[in-house]
């Protein structure tokens, strides 16, 4: 059962070939079995899952189902789940039982989906390897000595090892796409504002976006149809109708123009990864796609710009974690200052502390213009690069990450080296456009992801292009050994 796609599982449930309770039990067993190896889950919500499964079965019996009714999902532990621990991968929230549901969670509940558990992640979504979690590193199911990517490393590992039928993640600088690439699964970061951020613990408010991670573009479409939509509780939520993403998936790619940014194929790109991407390009040509070279000249400024904007916003977003009303409070604070400093010092890990300090510095008196303002202006240059490119092409294609999954501990000494693993993904968040990663091959026994980038609200085009590719290849159906 665990190998079936969401569409297949949905059909099986509706045909009563299997009940949601049985399906949930199967995935629960897998989750528990493989969690020790992978550490992909922080919390497995067995009781809740079985209760929801019972309710789903009742709905199915009454003929009152939706596409995802009865299907077990994992949620990145960044989404608030009412009555359930929501840790955001941090000691700061180790004791935090969320008192409300994120809008995304409400939507999944309304659709009848099952919450199997909360997936591990880099602390407060800051990281590219899931080595920054208070709950320990997540191991890549393809190579347990390697990282799954981050920050949605747990979600990616869950899907790769089929420890749930699909998962949710969030992407601020590549945190859905890069782990999807490292773990050989599909993931999409929707257009900024497409998915509600209410209840999704904020890292960098103008960059964060929640999205699905699953086995295939088809599965992503089903997930996105539930997740997307205007939310009055989120001021940055777009008031745009959600198209039926599944509808246009099969459109021919004949005549579709895809741009290849010359900046994405230069120095820093692993030769084997490049080869996989080139092979994928050939597949697309067979599907009728026309390729053209495009230039995104400010690409090299995207990582520096990001590492001013994101830390600045996070330094402010994380000020609420002060030990006063929820979360970790240090023992025996001797006064208010002591409570703040020790609670935060004890609650936050090193990377989070680093980014808060950078952000605080960038916003402080005398430095605002040189750093924050400069970065926001650069951001516009980067966004304009994409605007220009999309005047000539429908989509943009390239590698998701410069390498395959790297070894655990191999980049932890050098933050900059870690940051540069997001070099192809970060510009997308700065612009706010949608992008996805799909598996396109292997290099050194580890998955390689292909990135597709679209214009604002062009998720349907992206999913279509991904799906057509997945119809003529089977990388997305591969599973790591031992799972």
């Amino acid at each position, binding site marked *: 059962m665990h190998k079936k796609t969401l569409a297949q599982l949905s059909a099986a449930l509706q045909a009563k070939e299997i009940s949601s309770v049985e399906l949930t039990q199967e995935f629960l067993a897998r989750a528990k079995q493989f969690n020790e190896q992978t550490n992909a889950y922080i919390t497995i919500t067995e009781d809740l899952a079985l209760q929801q499964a019972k309710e789903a079965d009742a709905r199915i019996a009454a003929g009152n189902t939706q596409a995802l009714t009865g299907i077990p999902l994992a949620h990145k532990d960044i989404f608030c789940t009412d009555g359930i621990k929501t840790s955001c991968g941090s000691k700061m929230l180790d004791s935090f039982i969320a008192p409300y549901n994120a809008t995304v969670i409400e939507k999944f509940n309304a659709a009848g989906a099952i919450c199997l558990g909360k997936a591990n992640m880099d602390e407060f979504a800051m990281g590219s390897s899931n080595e920054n979690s208070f709950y320990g590193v997540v191991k890549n199911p393809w190579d347990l000595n390697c990282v799954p990517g981050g920050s949605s490393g747990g979600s990616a590992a869950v899907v790769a090892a089929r420890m749930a039928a699909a998962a949710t993640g969030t992407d601020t600088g590549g945190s859905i796409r890069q782990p999807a690439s490292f773990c050989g699964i599909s993931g999409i970061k929707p257009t900024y504002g497409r998915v509600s951020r*209410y209840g999704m613990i904020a890292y*960098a408010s103008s960059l964060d976006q929640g999205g699905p991670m699953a086995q295939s573009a088809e599965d992503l479409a089903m997930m996105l149809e539930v997740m997307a939509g205007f939310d009055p509780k989120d001021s940055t939520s777009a008031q745009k109708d959600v198209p039926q993403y599944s509808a246009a998936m099969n459109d021919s790619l004949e005549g579709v123009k895809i741009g290849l940014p010359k900046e994405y194929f230069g120095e820093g790109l692993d030769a084997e990864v490049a080869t996989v991407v080139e092979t994928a390009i050939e597949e697309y040509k067979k599907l009728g796609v026309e390729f053209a070279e495009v230039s995104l000249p400010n690409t090299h400024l995207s990582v520096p710009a990001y590492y001013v904007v994101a830390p600045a916003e996070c330094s402010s977003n994380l000020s*609420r974690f002060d030990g006063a*009303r*929820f979360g970790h409070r240090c023992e025996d604070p001797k006064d208010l200052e002591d409570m703040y400093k020790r609670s935060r010092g004890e609650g936050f890990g090193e990377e989070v502390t680093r980014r808060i300090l950078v952000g605080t510095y960038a916003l402080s*008196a005398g430095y605002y213009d040189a750093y924050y303002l400069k970065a926001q202006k650069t951001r516009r240059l980067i966004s304009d690069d994409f605007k220009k490119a999309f005047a000539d092409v429908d989509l943009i294609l390239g590698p998701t990450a410069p390498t395959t999954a790297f070894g655990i501990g191999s980049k932890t000494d050098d933050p900059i080296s870690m940051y540069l693993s997001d070099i192809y993904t970060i510009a997308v968040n700065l612009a706010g456009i949608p992008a996805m990663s799909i598996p396109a091959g292997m290099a050194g026994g580890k998955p390689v992801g292909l990135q597709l980038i679209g214009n604002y609200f062009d998720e349907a085009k992206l999913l279509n292009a991904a799906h057509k590719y997945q119809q003529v290849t089977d990388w997305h159906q591969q599973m790591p050994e031992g799972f």
Partner: protein
Amino acid sequence: MEWEVVIGLEIHVQLACKSKIFSGASTAFGAEPNTQACAVDLGLPGVLPVFNGEAAKMSIKFGLACGCEIAQRSIFARKNYFYPDLPKGYQTSQYEIPIVGKGQIEIQVDENTTKVVGITRAHMEEDAGKSLHEDFAGMTGIDLNRAGTPLLEIVSEPDMRSAKEAVAYMRKIHSLVRYLGISDGNMQEGSFRCDANVSVRPMGQKEFGTRAEIKNLNSFKFIEKAINVEVERQIDLIEAGGEVVQETRLYDSDKDETRSMRTKEEANDYRYFPCPDLLPVVISDEVVTEIQGSMPELPDEKKARFMEQFDLGSYDASLLSSSVESAGYFEKAVDASGGEGKLCANWIMGELQASLNREDMELEQSPVTPDLLGGLVKKIKDKSVTSKIAKKVFEAMWNDEGTADEIVEKYGWKPADASEIEPIIDEIIANNQAQVEQYRSGKEKVFGFFVGQVMKATKGQADPAQVNQLLKSKLAP
């Protein structure tokens, strides 16, 4: 050395919205602690702000009333600092682009003096919660009901030159926001809070002296005292060779002095940046026009109208138009009196105010309603009571004895008419022939004796003018 005082005021006005500026929790005063602090107000992980459009409308109303520039595109900014009553660790406010820009307002300094004070800007922001320092064994209790209440911070130009001007400005703004219906201005409940920036400089000097900020002045009385005492402190300090430090101070009303407040650090780096969870507030021309159209008659307009319509002096008109309540009372009374503006004004500012003061009452609590007062004034005007009787009628009305008509009827205080007065005069003349002779022989002063006698006999219920006229004709040789 002659010193000049320079004062600027920052007034925080709680806007009369039903719900908070960024959440749907209630803003009602007096609820049990933390029962009106929803997830957004508490700053729980993952929550987001959604802006209450009414706050923008109310702010624009204020801006239009003071002839201010309205920013049809304004930005919310985060002011970052740590304090327990600030749950998110930042206050959402407006920094570089506030919704209301430069404008001005005229204040009545005293009976004969008005002055124009500039308004620098007014911006929207969220209020913080409350800290309770007693009763918790060395800990502080935090109530976040107030967190998120919409505030309009009104910043004046440093145009005021005395505590008196500062109070006049504060009163004017207080009256204006209540007139506009954008705030109840209740200082006890914290709906209207004032900070004063005070500095001194040698008369004639162009540069401003270093200023000190006196925070949280919540009464007209205190602000005047606080400013005066601070000015004295600064002058004494400078004259003794010291320097004024730029700092925040609190006014101690018991000791009548200001003292330095060191909790909020002197050099706070607020690290302002545009709030990424909120978008630019864009207000269309149509909406501004609509708001302009819905503005009530403003105090200054009312004052001018009172002066013209009822021939009132500037000071009287100013007093009567100073609050919605007094203006309303006045207008109703005038109506009930059949248009007698001047008389009503006199009675309101005289007898009525005296009675209110004596009983320590607000106008709204007066047992003498505008209808009752107007009714009395009507009778004074048509001479159906004398002014002496009117005072007695007023007292009876104050004691809830009914309308003027009812009271006059009850006590038989109808003024005597000619047919009643004449026989009395005849009798007095008959009984006082000697005085009659004296008057007729030219002793004009004796007239007063007859007036006195008639008034006594009629128990003051005779119209003096009428008595005079009748006496004169009857005493004529």
